[in-house]
């Protein structure tokens, strides 16, 4: 046989080449895909006949056959088999989703999902099966099995046994060995086929249960049985039916290799005492539908069990979180803890929204074992920060900014406890083009630099800390990030390149007065081509044409284009598509356009949104009330929300953003308009993303001109990766479409030439992006890095201003930033000031490194120590590993550090203060003058609790006046006339934002400018200033460096009234009333009005409790917490019955413990083995069996004296 293997493989290759080259599809496959999309979108489909269907079915069979050959000869991991399975899955999926009549010949959805499972695309398998209606119970059972929905399998098998009690007796598995089998079964028709089916049901039930409970020995038994049934099926069933049994059997084998129990058991060997808890964790993963690992997870967990630090590089949505969670388990729970030090993990995420998402998930999975907290509030620590003082392991989920603040505030304590560092979306350390400009560095706005600086410092201070980076695939970051994490020049990222669901990129051609159509261009990162042709793949939409817009609307091509996107979205949304219209900038303009379009008479027929009933309706009402509260009656946000359109942008108040996100998550709003901040790392259920522009206008302040920056591929990839996320959207595929008009929308002759040019520019932008995307998809192993970019920018600018290469290092060491420009540190735009500010940025990095080390050692560094420290820090930077670096960079970094330590900021004391303020040192030095005045204002606010709104806001205004004029630490706006006007009248904005009664707010068009001012200057800059002062006061009051703040000691330590504690929270929530901030943050109230109403409850309680209402008591966070604890609890579910007394029926109890699942029949509970044998019954507590009992675990304890059943796992 072996000598024929090569020939067989060649034949399989022949089929693969003909049908299954990745992203290369034949013309009939392309037609099938287009037809599938059209059916999904409920638009008319292209012509298609039975012959086409038969040819596709036949091709799918041939592919499955080729996969079989590959696996027979090359083994289960054959790459060729994978390709064939995937394409077979696609061909069958496309026909399934097209409702093809071939579904009456054979259940192709079952074949499709099995092919996807075997092609290691489980998300495709379950995504597809969640979309199709299934008529027959058997097919539904196999579908549940193939989507790894084991609870669903048990539920189906339980229904089967409930309907066939005769088959649950002790000997029912052996009926075929009885002579009277026909009588027993009740028919003289072939009982073999029926009993074959019964045994198949038994096997699947048992496999499902043993997989999710990790019962290896009985799984093996069920697996052997299924193997035997497969052999029977091969001989006795029709080819299609036999194929499906065979696929079920093969998928079972793949499940056996992919169970989360395997790596968990390996990890548990580190600390056997923890094994029971870890097994529970594994079981819980199955309860969440994540028990079967995806290929990328298997690789990641293998790495985790073998070592501590690595970069996991996989596409979005491939289950990185599980790897991170198990890393936390390993580092926080399994390692022997140092005495008296509770280990801590820092989990760095790119956005506050993501922090919330990660916190929620982590807490639900690991909340019993460790404290999980994301820091949301305005302050650097808040009233619920038990992790600071607790002696339990803790995970702190933070943005890089928050992590910086924590490190400054609590550095020694944090570093002492830190055991593991997890960096989510770590590719964000790679700066994009706009982040590499000197302007950006001079503005101190580079997030990438902040991340690099923070992580490098942590790694220098604690080299032994375990670190794990989770990173996206393309863009070249994976290798460098891996080297950074592992500290090893040879390190490689762990992971796989393939996407877990289909990602399609294309163009929405918007046609004035004609039908729009879609051009599909990139599938899974490669150009979608039709083999042997250059034809593009078009998808006609066949929705009604958009009525001609009034002249004032169509005279702007951008407006026409955007409005046409809305028209398309509103129609497609009817088919359960969830659509994001992503806007590069100025979301308020798009919101205005959309509001106006929806009000046009000619749009009266557009499908309209209806408020949902029930719980979702209540959630909608809350979002609406909050939108009304923060945005106002006339706002575009509210008008759009009423049309089912959620909105989100970075300046939106946090609470409203969260609620808008909830509208999307719960699929209440089918259409969303948002900037990129919505989707940074967050899972949202979008199927389709539209973009109306690929450029962002930026104001080049140095040259005083408007510049346009193309969207970076990283940003585009991040965005498009949000569409079609497994488990979040409908699954299967996500599509990102760039809207481009086909011709001018204006009819006025004068406007048409301009629109032609604009249209061409849009096309060009898209072409460029497409080219870059395709190029970058290839392997790269180097990336830009922020610190080297900063050094390069300084070098370039210094050279331009006359510093020669030979002088550069010396110049760096001796030139203080302020000596370069008289307007240094003041956001000035001339070349010298930008150079000074960029140097100041670099100074911040080195000063932080030096000050932190001095803080630990509590003594000044000698020049030699500083040099050594900076040198070792450099080696820990991303810049040192990202790409080959020129020698001078390290030298420059060290020289500048020496300059900082010896010349520019020569005293330890000053360095310490500047470090703690958190500003760059030049600005911090100026800020020092404000320390005393702000302290005085805070200290004088003793009566805040009983002041009226105006008096309270005056306190903020007093602080604001200290800040307003400075362009370093103070208020800053863009150069536009509107923004300058807002700066002039900032107290009005403050009054509005802090909810001062009778203070008017902005009109709808100004709303976002006001929000931006609020977020940039009130929440952020005023907040930072107050925080810097309170932090220093606390540190000066604390008796040692390892002290942690707590509510008990805060007032004593700082000597400040509670207002100082609340000030940043108030700025964050937009209220002058601490109780309102408390109530909103704790979910006690939904809107500011409601919270205000509840404050009376608190006051009444306070009076009853203390007999008085002292001003400080009125805002005492400890009393707020006590009040909250006094509220009645409503936790009835905890009382559920867990134990049932039972009598044995189908077993003699020889094994003491049996895994069982309940069915309720004839008023009693029948406890069945998962293979369908009744083992015992109970007559009490029948009502305590939940409807979804098949999702839970029950164990029958068959001891003679006390036979009982215990619920051992309840699905949350």
């Amino acid at each position, binding site marked *: 046989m072996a000598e024929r293997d090569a020939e067989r493989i060649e034949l399989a290759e022949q089929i693969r080449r003909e049908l299954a080259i990745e992203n290369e599809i034949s013309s009939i496959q392309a037609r099938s895909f287009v037809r599938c999309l059209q059916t999904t979108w409920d638009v008319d489909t292209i012509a298609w006949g039975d012959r086409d269907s038969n040819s596709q079915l036949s091709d799918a069979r041939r592919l499955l056959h080729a996969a079989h050959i590959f696996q027979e000869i090359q083994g289960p991991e054959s790459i060729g088999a994978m390709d064939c399975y995937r394409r077979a899955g696609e061909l069958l999926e496309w026909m399934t989703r097209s409702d093809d009549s071939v579904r009456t010949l054979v259940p192709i959805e079952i074949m499709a999902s099995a092919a996807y499972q075997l092609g290691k695309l489980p998300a495709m398998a379950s995504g597809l099966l969640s979309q199709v209606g299934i008529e027959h119970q058997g097919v539904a059972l196999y579908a549940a099995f193939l989507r790894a929905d084991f609870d669903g399998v048990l539920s189906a098998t339980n229904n089967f046994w409930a309907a066939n009690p005769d088959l649950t007796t002790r000997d029912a598995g052996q009926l*075929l060995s009885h002579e009277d089998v026909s009588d027993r079964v009740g028919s003289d028709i072939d009982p073999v086929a029926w009993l074959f089916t019964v045994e198949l049901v038994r096997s699947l039930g048992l496999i499902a249960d043993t997989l999710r409970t990790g019962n290896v020995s009985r799984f093996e038994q069920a697996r052997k049985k299924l193997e035997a049934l497969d052999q029977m099926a091969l*001989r006795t069933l029709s080819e299609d039916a036999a194929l499906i049994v065979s696929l079920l059997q093969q998928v079972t084998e793949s499940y056996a290799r992919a169970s989360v129990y395997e790596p968990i058991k390996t990890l548990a060997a580190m600390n056997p005492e923890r094994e029971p808890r870890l097994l529970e964790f594994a079981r819980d993963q199955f309860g969440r539908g994540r028990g079967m690992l995806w290929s990328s997870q298997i690789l990641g967990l293998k790495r985790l069990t073998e070592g501590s630090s690595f970069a996991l590089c996989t596409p979005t949505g491939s289950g990185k979180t599980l790897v991170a969670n198990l890393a936390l388990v390993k580092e926080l729970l399994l390692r022997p803890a140092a005495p008296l030090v509770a280990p801590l993990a820092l989990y760095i995420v790119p956005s506050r929204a993501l922090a919330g998402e990660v916190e929620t998930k982590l807490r639900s999975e690991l909340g019993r074992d460790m404290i999980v907290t994301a820091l949301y509030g305005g302050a650097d620590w808040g009233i619920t920060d038990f992790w600071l003082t607790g002696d339990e392991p803790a995970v702190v989920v933070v943005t890089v900014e928050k992590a910086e603040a924590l490190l400054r505030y609590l550095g020694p304590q944090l570093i002492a406890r830190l055991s593991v560092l997890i960096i989510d979306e770590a590719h964000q350390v790679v700066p994009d083009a706009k982040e590499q400009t000197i302007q950006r560095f001079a503005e101190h706005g580079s997030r990438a630099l902040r991340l690099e600086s923070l992580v490098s410092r942590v790694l220098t201070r604690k080299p032994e800390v375990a670190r794990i980076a989770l990173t996206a695939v393309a863009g070249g970051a994976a290798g460098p990030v891996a080297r950074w994490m592992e500290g090893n020049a040879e390190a490689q990222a762990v992971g796989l390149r393939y996407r877990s669901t289909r990602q399609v990129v294309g163009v929405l051609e918007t046609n004035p007065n004609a039908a729009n159509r879609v051009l599909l261009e990139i599938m899974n990162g490669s150009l979608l081509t039709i083999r042997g042709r250059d034809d593009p793949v078009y998808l006609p939409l066949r929705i009604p044409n958009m009525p001609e817009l009034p002249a004032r609307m169509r005279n702007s091509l951008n407006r026409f284009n955007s409005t046409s996107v809305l028209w398309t979205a509103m129609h497609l949304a009817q088919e359960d598509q969830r659509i994001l219209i992503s806007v590069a900038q100025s979301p308020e303009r798009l919101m205005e356009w959309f509001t106006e379009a929806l009000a046009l008479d000619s749009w009266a027929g557009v499908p309209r949104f209806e408020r949902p009933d029930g719980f979702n309706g209540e959630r909608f009402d809350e979002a609406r009330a909050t939108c009304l509260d923060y945005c106002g009656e006339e706002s575009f946000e509210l008008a759009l929300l009423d049309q089912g359109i959620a909105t989100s942008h970075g300046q939106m108040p946090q609470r409203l953003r969260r609620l808008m996100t909830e509208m999307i998550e719960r699929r209440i709003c089918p259409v969303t308009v948002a900037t990129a901040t919505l989707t940074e790392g967050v899972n949202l259920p979008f199927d389709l993303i539209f973009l109306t522009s690929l450029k962002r206008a930026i104001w080049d302040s140095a040259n005083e001109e408007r510049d346009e920056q193309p969207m970076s591929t990283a940003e585009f990839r991040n965005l498009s990766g949000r569409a079609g996320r497994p488990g979040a959207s409908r699954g299967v595929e996500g599509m990102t479409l760039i809207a481009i008009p086909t011709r001018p929308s204006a009819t006025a002759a004068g406007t048409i030439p301009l629109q032609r040019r604009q249209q061409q520019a849009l096309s060009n932008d898209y072409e460029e992006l497409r080219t870059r995307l395709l190029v970058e998809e290839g392997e790269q192993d180097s990336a830009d890095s922020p610190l080297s970019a900063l050094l390069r920018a300084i070098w370039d600018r210094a050279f331009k201003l006359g510093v020669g290469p030979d002088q550069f290092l010396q110049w760096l060491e001796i030139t203080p930033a302020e000596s370069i420009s008289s307007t240094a540190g003041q956001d000035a735009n001339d070349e010298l000031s930008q150079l000074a500010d960029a140097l100041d940025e670099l100074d911040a990095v080195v000063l932080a490194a030096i000050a932190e080390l001095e803080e630990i050692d509590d003594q000044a560094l000698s020049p030699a120590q500083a040099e050594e420290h900076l040198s070792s820090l450099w080696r820990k930077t991303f810049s040192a590993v990202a790409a080959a670096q020129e020698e001078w960079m390290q030298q420059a970094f060290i020289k500048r550090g020496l300059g900082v330590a010896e010349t520019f900021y020569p005293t330890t004391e000053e360095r310490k203060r500047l470090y703690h303020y958190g500003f760059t040192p030049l600005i911090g030095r100026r800020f020092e003058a404000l320390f005393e005045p702000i302290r005085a204002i805070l200290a004088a606010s003793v009566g805040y609790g009983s002041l009226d709104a105006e008096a309270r806001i005056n306190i903020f205004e007093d602080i604001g006046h200290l800040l307003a004029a400075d362009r370093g630490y103070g208020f800053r706006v863009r150069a536009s006339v509107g923004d300058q006007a807002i700066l002039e009248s900032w107290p009005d904005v403050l009054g509005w934002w802090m909810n001062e009664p009778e203070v008017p707010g902005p009109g709808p068009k100004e709303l976002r400018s006001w929000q931006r001012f609020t977020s940039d200057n009130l929440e952020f800059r005023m907040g930072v200033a107050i925080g810097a002062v309170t932090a220093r006061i606390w540190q000066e009051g604390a008796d040692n460096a390892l002290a942690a703040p707590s509510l008990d000691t805060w007032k004593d330590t700082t000597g400040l009234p509670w207002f100082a504690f609340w000030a940043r929270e108030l700025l964050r929530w937009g209220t002058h009333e601490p109780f309102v901030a408390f109530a909103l943050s704790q979910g006690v109230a939904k809107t500011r009005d409601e919270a205000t109403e509840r404050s009376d409850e608190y006051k009444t309680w306070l009076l009853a409790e203390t007999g008085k209402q002292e001003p400080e008591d009125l805002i005492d966070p400890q009393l707020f917490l006590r009040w909250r604890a006094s509220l009645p609890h409503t936790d009835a579910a905890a009382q559920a019955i867990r134990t049932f007394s039972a009598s044995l029926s189908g077993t003699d109890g020889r094994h003491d413990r049996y895994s069982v699942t309940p069915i309720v029949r004839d008023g009693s509970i029948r406890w069945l083995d998962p293979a369908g044998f009744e083992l015992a019954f109970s007559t009490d507590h029948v009502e305590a069996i939940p409807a979804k009992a098949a999702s839970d675990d029950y164990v029958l304890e068959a001891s003679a004296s006390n036979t009982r059943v215990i619920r051992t796992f309840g699905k949350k």
Partner: protein
Amino acid sequence: MHNCPPPKDALKDWLKQYPSVEDRYGHLLLEARKAPDTALVDALRPYFESAHLDAREHFHTQIGIDLHPDSDGGEAAPSYPRCLPPTARRGLFGEVAAGLATEAYQKTFLGQHAWVVPIFLFRYHADVEAYLWTLNFDPDRKRQIFGRFGSDFIGVALSDTGEVVRVIAGEAKWRKNLTESQVDGILLGPKKKNKKTGISEHNGRGVWYELNRDTPIPHGLRQLQRLLEARDPDGFAAAILSIDQAIAARDASFPRTNLLVIAGNGAATRSSSEPVIPWEVLPEEYTAPHDLQVVEMILDDGEELIDALYDSLWDAD
């Protein structure tokens, strides 16, 4: 593997042959000369045991795994196919008879190809496969859920070097009494009342329909290949490869003969040498492009033969 030669002498004693070949239509009427006796059963037994051996092993393996949690394995004592009820046995008999006729009478078959049946597939009745999809055992309400079912029987002709050069595939039907209406039911499908006319008519879903619409690679050929891979990969290496080749080539397939075997007792009104399907011309309902071979086995006391034969299989065990 099935390797027992057909008992040609016993067959000769038992059945009288009426072969004919007209163009691409072969017809063979086999008419019992006598009622079955013990000697016939003894002569047929080795062939039937050989045909059933592979299925029997797997049947026993499957039954032998009892999933009850208290099972200690090993107590099951089934005896396939003896344990099967009468209806099932008759179905199996038809399938073995198809192989027997193909191997024993190939000299009289259309084309005189050297057919071999390396291994027997035993298909369930199409309707009972519906259990698999509905999970519902209702003997009175049977219906096919999904499309076509595939052939009951498959055999191959091999070249000198072992490649498959031709395939024979088709249907084997047993009826107790081969009356005209029974035969029409087989050929043209069961009767159903026409709603418009009120008259019962055949629904058209009989064996002609199934033969006419089979796919280029006959259903079952891949299964046969998998069995060869598992049972004798070296002995049938060339055959296995040649099946791959046929599948890999999109539109080509093996030359093929469709087989229809109808077995049963002759109708009371039947006269000697009278076929149930005319032999002179290719039936007009048959529209497939492949050769057609029809075999009629008209028996006396056929059911007694089947019961005696199946009761005797592995009786010594």
